[in-house]
Structures are given as structure tokens and as C-alpha cells.
């Protein structure tokens, strides 16, 4: 990405694409591809599918450009498309898993362990594996809310735009997701902070929060 591209807002680029400068869409792809690929990857934990669904996202966004209103936020727009494509994929996978469990129950585990997880087992740290599995085990709404908030650092308002959920619902989903992950993180770090706290209250934390 060249420095010049930063001068143009998403809406400027969308407008130029709409006027026929199709190649300018590449700037938008380059701007968002990493975030979109990672967002989808964190939702489905499958490297190849994440790449493919991210490509579908950009194609869908391109096709929707005539309908896009500049009052909308392009970032919310693109993540809404990515979210819809990902949730549809998850729904389809669930259906396939449901039927394949009837057809060949013995192969269920094979199906669950995708190429990516096999790869991950070898390469990623053990800690990351545990937390990835824990995230994977969250229900998809909790997972979606958590990734949008914690990984992408979106505000509740932006999450509302993307998901269409109310803010109290978003808050509840994030809170539940964190609670569900807490146990896993505790096991992972292999230390119980509660015990530590009882021995010696963490003054650093207090200072940091007060500051």
C-alpha cells in the first residue's frame, strides 16, 4: 500500500469505483484483507476456508457497491457482509456435521479436526491452542461478539451496526464469552490468581486502575 492511498477515505474510493474506476477497489481490498481474513479465521478456525470466505466477502461487497449509501460506515458495511458470509458457512457446516454424524459416527472427530488445527497442533504454542479451542467452543453469537470487541476493538455501537443486536444483548454476550473463557485461561496460565490475591493483594493493578 502506498502512502498516497491513505489520503483517500473509503467513501472516496467507493465513489470512484462506482464511477467506473474498478481497479481502485484493489485499494479497499488491500486496506481490509488482513482484518477480514483474521476475523473469519478466528470465527471458523480453518485457514483455507477463511481465505476463500474473505474473497467471497470482497466480491459481495463489490457487487453491493451500487446499493451502498455513503452515509453508512464502510467498515461496518464490509464487516456485516463478512459476518453474514461466515455465519452462513457455520450454519452449513453444522448441517453437514449433523448428517455426517448419522452416516459415519466414527469419522466425526476427523471432521472436526481440520487441516488447520492439525497444523496448529504442531506449530502454535500450547497456550494458544487451549484458548483457540475455548473460543471455538463458545456459541457463535458469543464468539462473534467477543471477536468484534476484543480482537477488532470495535465499540458496542459499531457491533450494533454490524450485527443488528441491541447494546444490552451485545454486552451480555461479551460478558458471557469472557466468563466462559476465564476458566480456560486459568487452567492455561496454571496459576490461580485468587490464591495469589489472598496472599498479597496486587497493588500494581490497583495503582494502574486508579491512575
Amino acid at each position, binding site marked *: 500500500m502506498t502512502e498516497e492511498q491513505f489520503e483517500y477515505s473509503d467513501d472516496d474510493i467507493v465513489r470512484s469505483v462506482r464511477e467506473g474506476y*474498478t*481497479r481502485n*477497489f*484493489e485499494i479497499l*481490498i*488491500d486496506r481490509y*484483507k*488482513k482484518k477480514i*481474513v*483474521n476475523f473469519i*479465521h*478466528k470465527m471458523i478456525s480453518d*485457514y483455507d476456508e*477463511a*481465505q476463500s470466505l*474473505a*474473497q467471497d466477502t*470482497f*466480491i459481495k461487497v*463489490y*457487487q453491493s457497491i451500487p446499493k451502498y449509501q455513503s452515509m453508512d460506515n464502510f467498515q461496518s458495511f464490509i464487516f456485516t457482509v463478512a459476518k453474514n458470509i461466515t455465519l452462513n458457512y457455520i450454519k452449513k457446516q453444522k448441517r453437514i456435521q449433523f448428517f455426517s454424524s448419522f452416516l459415519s459416527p466414527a469419522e466425526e472427530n476427523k471432521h472436526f479436526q481440520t487441516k488447520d488445527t492439525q497444523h496448529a497442533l504442531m506449530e*502454535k504454542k500450547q*497456550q*494458544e491452542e487451549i*484458548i*483457540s479451542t475455548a*473460543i471455538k467452543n463458545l456459541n457463535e453469537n458469543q464468539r462473534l461478539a*467477543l*471477536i468484534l*470487541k*476484543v*480482537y477488532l476493538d470495535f*465499540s*458496542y455501537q459499531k457491533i450494533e451496526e454490524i450485527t443488528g443486536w441491541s447494546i444490552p444483548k451485545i*454486552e451480555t454476550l*461479551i*460478558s458471557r464469552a*469472557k466468563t466462559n*473463557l*476465564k476458566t480456560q*485461561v*486459568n487452567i*492455561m*496460565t496454571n496459576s490461580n*490468581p*485468587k490464591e495469589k*490475591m489472598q496472599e498479597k*493483594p*496486587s497493588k500494581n*493493578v*490497583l495503582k494502574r*486502575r*486508579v491512575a
Partner: protein
Amino acid sequence: MNTQCKEITPYLNRYQDGEVDEDLRQKIQTHLAQCPDCTLELQLLDQVTTVVKNLSEIEPQLNFTAQVMSQIKEKEQPRWFALPSLPSLAYSIVFIVFCILGLLLNPQMKTPKIEAVPVVNAADYADYPTLLAESQQLNLIEIQDKTIEMVYNGEHK
């Protein structure tokens, strides 16, 4: 857990997400400064978010942008000979079936009953050739003697 903790705990998640207003933020901070339990709770939440934030990222495939652009170009080219996609084909078939059923079931579209038309002898009405020709045209009568009829029409050779 004291009363203040009960009051604060429900907002810890929002606080950590940076989604509380200034008043509440200050209230929570004051409470945290004196409550180890709530501080611990927040510490646990911090651990969770740190771990999630630090999950390693993947890179988009090297030719990602080029692949998307080529797929866009491919889809933009008109495909004159392409078969309609399965759903649209299915919708068309359903639509056509409904149209046919509608036509068949519509009482107004039933074929009219063919009523018996009186058969007349052209020779009997030789004095009224126009009336005869018109009546026949309107299917009100059937002419028995074709030869004579054709004479009236001036076509007989």
C-alpha cells in the same frame, strides 16, 4: 461481597470494554482502589482479553487481491449461453406450473360448449344470399348444399 461490590460487579465488563460514562468510570475506579475482590475479577477479565488479543494472526494469501479482482472481472462479463442458476430455474418452473394450474382451474377459461347449429338448405334461402352468408360466417347455421352456397359467393366455376 459487600453491597457496593454487588452494585459494581455487573458493570465490570462494560468498564473493561471502555463502555461506561465518566461518572460510572470514576465510581468504579474508586471502588476498585479499596476492593481486592473486584480488582481480582477485573484482573481475570484482563487476562482473558489479553490472551484473545495476542492470538497470532494469519496473513492473506500472496495473490489474494489479484484473485478477488479476477473473480470480479469474470463475474462482470455477460454470459449469454449460461444456464440459469438452479434456484432461479426452480422458481421459473414453479411459476409456470402455477400459471398452467391457474388457467386450467379458472372457470371462465373452460372451453365453450359447442351447441348444435341448425343445418339449412342453401336453396331454401336463395332469395337472401347476404343473410345466408352472414349467418354462416357467425356460425349460426350450417349450410348443407355447398355447391349452391359457393354459387352465392360467386366462387363456383
